[in-house]
């Protein structure tokens, strides 16, 4: 016990150390790298908490996909500070502010009468130099107050954790009891796809909306076009090799993860995340260009998963058990089928979220009408 506990303690210390690094690192890029490592260690912690499904998700989505987004952002922000672009295919931000060059980059406020102009905020705008990560921290007293208050929150939570050390109320029993009726062995999947399927369904809508939100940041003239400032040239031998070798394996793994999700850790998200990783690799290696966001096929594929889930849910109305219930005889195949479509859509959505808004104008032919 003590050795395991020691290992746990070491892991916790590492996790916390990285957390502090993320907060305190000198540059944004360093902090992001720290965060990716933090996520991977956290996945270990999830394993130690006997939550294999969560560990997979954390590693794939929490650390992997999130990391990809953050690294790309940090590079772009840094690229502005150091002129030579350090990431293939990413140029300097296109318009370092032609609009605010006309003297409007004074700190803004939202109001003010015409007669007596209100004071400017004491904000730290003058310290915001493009690309510079540091500077502009709030004053010492503010930081002290922040420390005290967040310390109080931590103390409260820690007190509760210590106070209620005993076993917590649990739905594990209830969750396992009904699994056979669904033809499943993995209780987490059972919760996600059956007991709390409404949450999962709504969360699919959240994903769609997030994608819509990211796409909404496309400039009007490139609407319908492809993400990334320009096509990534196929070069860089090692990356190409990796991008040719890994995807077939990845796809097999993803299908496996999806399939075992019924009984063991795994499922739509995890499988989808692995597919996403493969796809991003292929895109980065320049083997396949990112798809245009105006593509009809892409839109249909993205919507297919949530639509299938919705359709199955609504079909439940013909059953006595109602919306989002599965007839016992075909529960398992039905669930697997829904999950398969979902996996594909999730992979696409996650990948597109990483790729970001369109930055290249579409071919006239591929514009959606």
């Amino acid at each position, binding site marked *: 016990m003590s050795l395991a506990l020691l290992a746990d303690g070491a892991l916790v210390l590492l996790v916390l150390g990285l*957390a502090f690094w993320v907060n305190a690192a000198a540059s944004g890029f360093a902090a992001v790298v720290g965060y990716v490592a933090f996520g991977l260690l956290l996945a270990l912690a999830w394993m130690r908490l006997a939550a294999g*499904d969560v560990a997979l998700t954390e590693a794939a989505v929490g650390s992997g996909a999130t990391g990809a987004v953050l690294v790309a952002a940090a590079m772009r922000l840094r690229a502005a500070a150091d002129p030579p672009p350090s990431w293939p295919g990413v140029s300097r931000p296109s318009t370092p502010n032609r609009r605010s060059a006309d003297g409007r980059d004074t700190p803004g406020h939202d109001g003010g009468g015409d007669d007596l102009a209100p004071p400017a905020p004491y904000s730290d705008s003058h310290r915001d130099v493009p690309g510079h990560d540091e500077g502009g921290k709030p004053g010492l007293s503010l930081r002290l107050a922040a420390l005290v208050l967040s310390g109080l929150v931590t103390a409260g939570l820690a007190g509760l954790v210590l106070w209620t050390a005993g076993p917590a109320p649990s739905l594990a029993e209830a969750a396992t009891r009904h699994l056979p009726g669904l033809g499943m062995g993995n209780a987490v999947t059972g919760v996600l796809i059956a007991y709390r399927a409404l949450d999962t369904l709504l969360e699919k809508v959240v994903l769609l909306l997030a994608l819509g939100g990211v796409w909404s940041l496309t400039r009007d003239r490139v609407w319908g076009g492809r993400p990334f400032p320009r096509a990534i040239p196929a070069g860089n031998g090692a990356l190409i090799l990796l991008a040719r070798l890994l995807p077939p394996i990845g796809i097999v793994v993803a299908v496996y993860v999806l399939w075992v999700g019924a009984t063991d850790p795994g499922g739509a998200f995890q499988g989808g995340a692995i597919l996403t990783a493969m796809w991003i690799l292929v895109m980065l290696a320049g083997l396949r260009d990112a798809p245009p966001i105006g593509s009809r096929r892409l839109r249909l594929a993205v919507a297919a998963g949530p639509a299938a889930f919705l359709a199955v849910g609504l079909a439940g109305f013909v059953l006595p058990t109602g919306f989002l219930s599965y007839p016992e005889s075909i529960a398992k195949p039905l669930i697997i089928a829904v999950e398969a479509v979902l996996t594909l859509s999730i992979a696409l959505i996650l990948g597109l979220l990483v790729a970001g808004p369109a930055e290249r104008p579409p071919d006239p032919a591929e514009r959606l009408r």
Partner: protein
Amino acid sequence: MTPATLYGLCSAVLVGAGLYGMLVNPQPLRKILSLNLLGSGTFLLFGVIARRGAAAGLGGDPVPQAMVITGIVVAFSATALAVALLLRVFQETGRPTLDQPAPKDGG
């Protein structure tokens, strides 16, 4: 001291660290990172509670675990959207900043 308690304390500290970072870090990208720390701490608390609810042959209560999976995906979507917004702000203003620029004339 059980492992669950240990991770519970870890989650408490992560929440505090996330809140603190959210407050003091002036750069939006760093705020997004701190937000993720805050989120991770919250998820970890779910995990600890799930672990304490181990029963019926399971290592943990599957309900909070499932909630965490949903939560992680939402957190990722949030990160992606926030980062995309930040990059667009940077493109438009040349500064990765949360300072409100003065609105231009218009209805």
